[in-house]
Structures are given as structure tokens and as C-alpha cells.
């Protein structure tokens, strides 16, 4: 047996359910307003503060505020967006902006530059499968047509699994994220984890083909209705060079590089308030890297 490359644990997606007439509903995040969210809670904050990894600006935790809409996305209600006058961003927690104010996340900085509002469909713990599923639901259910879609693709080995349905409730889903340590509570989840651990991340071709399919589906769906797309992945998520299929994809790799003249103190990492995600200076760098490409697409529309 090939040695494991990642520890694999479930990434709970609190109460995430499939409703056929809208996007995946993040019931655990619905209408949350305030200092904390499920993924960035006070307990985690206190631990990080004690360990000294947080920047001083987070001594007051209320400097970060969350606001989620009625189906659990960190954005306005969908019907409040004007068709063709906003940028839609789809991705994982790096797009959701976990540990940051929405106004500090890379896409908000782009939106400010181009004077376009952002619909933030960032989904903590999501992989490409969730991004593609939400894309199809978005189009099938005729949500407002964006001017441009930016896909931030998470690491390739994330995978969602669907639990059984109980008491006529909608299906419950969860996502498996390599390297996040949450234990699994039931037999179905154990079977899923074993499969991930022994097969999916060890013999990787299936994951690559699936990821290729998600990319193709999501991009084709928006292009079919005349919406341009832009695709990128962060450097530390970039498995997209490891398979010949990916050669045909248009995927930019984004990395934040700090010059010696930029007074970046490597002894004090630039992290978000949750201690796990890149902080505000990284977000500025990401926006800086993405800006020319996004500008070029918008100019061509």
C-alpha cells in the first residue's frame, strides 16, 4: 500500500443541504450577522490569541464582522444584484474570506477597482465538485446573470459526500478536505473516509478526471449563456499541473510575493483572525496579481 500523503478527516459543512431550486443551502450560516461564524468561532480565536500567532489588530476580535444571506452565503440576497452589473466569485474559504472582513478579501479589492459589486459564493471546505454543482444550479434556476465569473479552484482532492435522507428532509452533504482534523461520527462517513484515504488520494487519476470534469462543466455552463470566465488557483492548492488533462485548461496560479522593500516581517505571519487563512496584506497581493487579467477581460466585454 502506498503511504498516505495527507491525513484525511471530514470537513463538516454544518447542515448543508441540497434544495433543487436554489444553490446548496448552508443552513448553519443562514442570516448570521456578527463577530463569529461557525468556521471562525470564539473558542478558536482564544486559542490562537493565547498561542500568540495573531496580529495585534485582532486584540479586539470585533474588528472582523460577518454577514451571511438567507441561504448562508457571505453576500447580499441574490435578487438584489442587477444582471450584467456584478462579478460572481466562486471558490472555497479563501473566497468566502474566513477570518477577514468581506471588504478585505481579494475579490472585494478587485470590485472596488473596477467599480463592480461582488457576489461572493465562497464556500468554506468546498472542492471543485461543490463549485460545479452550484454553478449548474445557478444557471438552471436562473439567478441574475453576472458580467464575469471568477473561479478560485480549491485543492483537487476535496470531495463531497452525501448522507442519507431522514424524515423527508433534504439530503445532507459533507465535504472531505485532506488535512483538516475533524473526526467522523458514523458508518457512512467512515466508509467515505476510508475510500478517500486508501484510494482517492493515493491513486489520483480519478480525482484528476473528476476535477477536469468540474472545471469543464462550470466554465462551459457560463460560456453557454455568454458569460466570460476566469480561473485561478492559489499556489499552495496547485495540483493542476500533475495530469495531462489539465494542460488544456486555462488556469492561473496566484502567489503573493513580498519584495525586500515591502517591510514584510516573516517572523510575524500575515494571517487572518482565524489564524489559518492568509491575512490582509496577502489579499492585497492577490488582487494585485489578478488585476491585469480581470481588467483585460472586462475591457474586452
Amino acid at each position: 500500500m502506498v503511504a498516505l500523503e495527507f491525513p484525511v478527516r471530514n470537513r463538516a459543512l454544518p447542515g448543508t443541504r441540497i434544495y433543487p431550486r436554489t444553490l446548496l443551502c448552508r443552513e448553519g450560516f443562514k442570516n448570521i450577522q456578527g463577530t463569529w461564524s461557525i468556521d471562525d468561532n470564539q473558542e478558536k480565536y482564544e486559542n490562537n490569541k493565547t498561542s500568540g500567532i495573531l496580529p495585534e489588530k485582532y486584540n479586539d476580535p470585533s474588528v472582523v464582522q460577518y454577514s451571511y444571506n438567507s441561504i448562508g452565503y457571505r453576500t447580499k440576497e441574490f435578487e438584489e444584484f442587477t444582471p450584467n452589473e456584478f462579478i460572481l466569485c466562486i471558490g472555497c474559504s479563501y473566497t468566502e474570506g474566513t477570518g477577514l472582513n468581506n471588504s478585505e478579501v481579494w475579490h472585494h479589492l478587485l470590485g472596488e477597482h473596477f467599480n463592480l459589486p461582488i457576489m461572493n459564493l465562497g464556500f468554506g471546505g468546498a472542492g471543485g465538485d461543490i463549485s460545479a454543482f452550484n454553478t449548474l444550479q445557478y444557471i438552471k434556476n436562473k439567478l441574475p446573470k453576472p458580467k464575469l465569473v471568477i473561479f478560485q479552484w480549491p485543492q483537487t482532492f476535496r470531495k463531497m459526500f452525501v448522507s442519507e435522507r431522514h424524515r423527508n428532509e433534504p439530503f445532507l452533504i459533507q465535504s472531505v478536505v485532506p488535512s483538516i482534523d475533524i473526526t467522523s461520527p458514523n458508518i457512512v462517513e467512515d466508509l467515505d473516509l476510508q475510500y478517500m484515504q486508501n484510494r482517492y488520494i493515493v491513486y489520483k487519476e480519478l480525482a484528476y478526471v473528476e476535477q477536469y470534469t468540474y472545471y469543464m462543466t462550470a466554465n462551459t455552463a457560463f460560456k453557454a449563456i455568454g458569460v466570460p470566465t476566469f480561473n485561478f488557483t492559489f499556489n499552495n492548492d496547485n495540483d493542476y499541473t500533475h495530469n495531462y488533462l489539465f494542460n488544456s485548461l486555462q488556469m492561473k496560479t496566484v502567489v503573493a510575493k513580498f519584495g525586500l522593500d515591502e517591510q514584510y516581517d516573516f517572523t510575524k505571519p500575515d494571517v487572518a483572525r482565524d489564524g489559518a487563512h492568509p491575512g490582509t496584506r496577502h489579499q492585497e497581493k492577490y488582487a494585485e496579481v489578478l488585476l491585469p487579467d480581470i481588467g483585460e477581460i472586462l475591457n474586452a466585454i
Partner: protein
Amino acid sequence: MLFKMKSNSPLIRISHLQNNTHEFQFGGEEEAFNKNRSSPSMDPRYLKTPLLYTNNSLGYRTKEFESFKDNEFILVFGCSYSEGVGLYEEDIWHNHVAKMTGLPIMNMGLGGTGADIISLNSTLYVHNIDKLPKPKAVIFQWPGRARKYFVDDGANKYGDTIFSTVPAIGLEGEVEDHPHSYNTLKKLDFDYYTERYITYPGNLYHTVFRDVMTANTLFNSIGAKTFNWMWKADGLDADSDFLFDKSNIKISKVITDHISEKSGYYHARDMIHPGPLVHDEVFRQIKPKLERSIL
């Protein structure tokens, strides 16, 4: 069943059938035919006139794609029932659709495939719509819900092809019959498939829903109307219908159980697939819905 996907190919390739005219489509077909030659159930036409399969340059049992004209053909996706395994082309259900509409059929039926392969091929088709002709309408015959492809980490890992296998039918038998031919990977897939995927089918339901939704949404997005049907016996159940019932995608359920061997030549030549009588009945049942929905 093995398929190959190549990054510069517009659709999945069935490499062993590319540009091929042959008498038998799969391994056991010839054996089944010879074994049953004298059976009273064997349609005598198959004994008189050879049944030849002619596959195009990508391995599909249809004309070359470029010979179809935009908006002047009907595109059909499905499994071996639509491919017409064991049948003359004139006996396949969609030949009746062609006669009714006066439009040729592009037959993308692929034996052994499930909704996942149909969804992937639909995505590739729409993605490559600049290179492929645009259909007037698309009819999906959705196969048995439990079919699923896996990808083999084979010798071509870093080459230009990949392999998919559809284990839903006969996988268990294959593993039992050829235990040494199955590597660790296939054993892991088989265990997962039997112990989780079909035993706790929440994932299966979601996957089928996703695949049906993907295929319909993509073709609808380019202005092609879609129609969906499946044999009731291949079908979903109340739990998965929950997703479809609350969606705006309808799948017509066809029941052909009342067509039995007593009705005549019930089987196709391979004595496995349904014969012309069943295909006639399929068309009879979907005809009024087709007329209302896409024609």
C-alpha cells in the same frame, strides 16, 4: 467497458471501435448468438442477414459528426439500449423518432455507461459546440441509476489517455471470475461501490441528479430542447425522486414489462437486450410526450 478520454478529442473516444465495421459489439455477444441460434426466441432475420455495426471515427454507432447539419438532427444519449446492441439500426427506438420527425439521429448511445458518462459527454459536446453540429433537440435515455465510472491508474498515467470502467453490471461477477486480474485499485473501487455507494445511496442519488441536471442545463443553454426518459425498472425511487420532483427536470418513466416472450421475438440478437417489440413500445409511450415537449 473501457473508454478513453484525450484532451484534444471533442468527445470521449471508444478507441477499440473507432472507424470499425464489425458483427459483434462486445465479447460475449457472438457466443450468445451462436448458443441461441436454434432458439425459438431468435428472430430469424438475424440468421438470414448479418447484423453489422458501423462506428464512426470516435467509435460511436452513427455517421461522422460533420455530416450532420446544424438544427437538422436529433441527438440521442443513452446506454446499450440506445446504441442498439443486438439490433439493426432500423429497430432501435429512436429510429421511430427519426421517421416521425423526418430528422436524422446522431446516436451517442454507449453500452455499459451510466449517467456520469452521459453528463461528461454532454459537457464535452457543448464545450466543443464550435466544432460539432448543434442539435435541434436532445433526447436522453438515462441508464440504470447505479452505474458509475472509475478511472484506472494504468500504464498511461502520464500518457494521453485514461481508462474508465463502468462496474455496475457484472462487476461482482467479474471480480469473482477473475480475482487475479483485478488490482488493488479495482478492489478498492469495488468495495466502496458495494459497501457504500449502492448500500447507502445518498451519494448515488445526488450524483444522478447532478448528472441529469448538468446535461439538460448545458443543452438548454445553447437553445436545444431536451427530453428525458428511462425504463421504470432502471429507475430512481422515492428518495431520489425527491430531488427531481422539486426540480424543473422531468424524466418520463417507460414500462415495458407487459411485453414478454409470449408476444413474439422479445429479445435482440444477443438474447440479452430487449428486441424490436420492446423498442416499438418505448416509442409508443414517449411519442405523445415528445410531441408536446420538443417537437
